[in-house]
């Protein structure tokens, strides 16, 4: 499982465990599964899906970054909105 937090300047929108994350990186979507290598990437504009096919939550994000360390995923974005 991945421990995920979705953070915007105003609040933490999501905090919990999911089995997969698909995020809109600056150059296209990036999928994260457990045991992913440490990664740091910039985000573009698009839809962030938590869980398989977005089962655990879907957010519209714009800019910011995504960081993966030891199954902890941090999505830090300037504008995030739950879908």
């Amino acid at each position, binding site marked *: 499982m991945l421990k995920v937090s979705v*953070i*915007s300047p105003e609040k933490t929108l999501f905090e919990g465990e999911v089995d997969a994350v698909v995020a809109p*990186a*600056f150059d296209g979507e990036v999928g994260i599964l457990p045991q992913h290598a440490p*990664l*740091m990437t910039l985000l573009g504009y698009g839809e962030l899906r938590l869980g398989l096919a977005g089962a655990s939550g879907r957010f519209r994000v714009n*800019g*910011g*970054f995504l960081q993966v360390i030891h199954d902890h995923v941090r999505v830090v974005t*300037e504008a995030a909105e739950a879908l």
Partner: protein
Amino acid sequence: MAKGKELKARIRTTESTRKITRTMEMVATSKLKRALDRVQAARPYANALGDVISSLYTPELAERFPLLRQPEQERRAAVLLMTADRGLCGGFNANLIREARHLVERLRDRSVEVELHFEGRRGVGYFRYIGEPVTASRIGISERPTADDASALIDGIMRQFIDGTLDAVYVVYAQFKSPLSTPPTASRILPVTPPARTAGGTVPDYILAPSADAIVSELLPLYVRNQVYRALVETAAGEQGARRSAMKSATDNATDMLSLLRRTYNRTRQASITQEIAEIVGGAAALE
């Protein structure tokens, strides 16, 4: 009984004033709670952003990114002063304005040209009054600031800094230490001072996409905006804290005053009754 009537009127006005200050105290208390929640909620983002920038930052970057450029000499600086839109919060606004004035004086002593930006009615009102040119001002966001408000405030200034028309940008805001301690603080947000690397900072071997440079240059503006956003939320919370204590002491003073007034009123009433009885008894005695 003219004195008694006067006292009664004063008791009435003091009572109604106390009712108002007590209500304002309660309103401020509940607003303070919400403002505090916002201060708390802003922390994870600021920490996350600070961590990343400090872990990717290297001194060599400073020469390449305009937001990190350290001008050899400050010639033009912008000061952004945040105050409340409303008064009735003790010395809160006055303290912020004083801090800003000191900063402006210090800068002018070093012959830096200063332009003034404002958020909040009180600050802009004062500086207009003393005849300072106001470059930009915004009101109406001090109570519930959003991240968009922060970008609206700082983006133009940030662009000017990148262009090189400004050499430094300062923010004067109320640092929120506790509801009772909100010291006015001046801090320089541009050029960016990268946050200190947190202890035990073994940076894991990241896959970086795109390069570290690109990530830093993309995240620096976010960091600057976030600093402004945090200053806004802290000032908003500070305002409510200051108003609560101001209104609490006003209510306490009204209570003290009321008890004094009531005591005086009762004393004069009693004195006049005693006097009347004495007069009647005296009159009756004279008739016998």
